[in-house]
C-alpha cells in the first residue's frame, strides 16, 4: 500500500523538528519518492548517520509500505 506524500512529510517533520523538507513523487505512485532534507541536527554526522536518522522517522515503513526513497541530506548554511 503506497504512502501519501503528506504522511511522508509529516513523519519526517515529526521526527526531525525544524527540518526543511522537499519531497518529489518520482512516479506518481506513492511508492517512489525523492526527498531533500536540510536539518541542523545533521551537523558533524556522516551521510550514513544522517540517512539513518531520516529512516528512523519512518517507523519501519521504509522498504515495506514505502519502496523507494532517494535521499539527499544537508546542513543549513550559517545565516
Amino acid at each position: 500500500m503506497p504512502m501519501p506524500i503528506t504522511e511522508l512529510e509529516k513523519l519526517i517533520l515529526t521526527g526531525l523538528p525544524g527540518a526543511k523538507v522537499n519531497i518529489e513523487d518520482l512516479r506518481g505512485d506513492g511508492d517512489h519518492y525523492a526527498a531533500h532534507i536540510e536539518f541542523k541536527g545533521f551537523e558533524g554526522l556522516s551521510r550514513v548517520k544522517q540517512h539513518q536518522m531520516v529512516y528512523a522517522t519512518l517507523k519501519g515503513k521504509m522498504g515495506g509500505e514505502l519502496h523507494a526513497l532517494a535521499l539527499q541530506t544537508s546542513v543549513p548554511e550559517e545565516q
Partner: protein
Amino acid sequence: MTDTATFDRIDTIVKKDPVVLFMKGTPTFPQCGFSSTVAQVLAHLQVQYESYNVLEDAEIREGVKAYSDWPTIPQLYVGGEFVGGCDIIREMFESGELQKMVTQ
C-alpha cells in the same frame, strides 16, 4: 530480530573480502535499478568485489538490514564497514570519495 547465526554469517561475509556488495540479482543480471546503479559504479571504477544476491537468501536479505541498521538493499561494505546504499554510493562516486576509499 536477526538470530546470532545469521549475524555471524554476515559478519564473516563482510570481513572476508575488501569490497562486498549485497544486491538484488547479480552484477551481470541485476534485478533492481538501485542495485544495478551501484554495480555499474563499481564496474566503472574497475573495482574487484564480492557480490551477494539477497534474492537467493531470505535470511541474509533481512539480516543485513538489522546488521547495518539500514532498511534497504543494495548495501556496500568496504573493509568490513557499511558504506551506504545507492544514494550515498552515487554521491561518493560523484565527489571522488569512493574511488579513494576502494583504491586504498
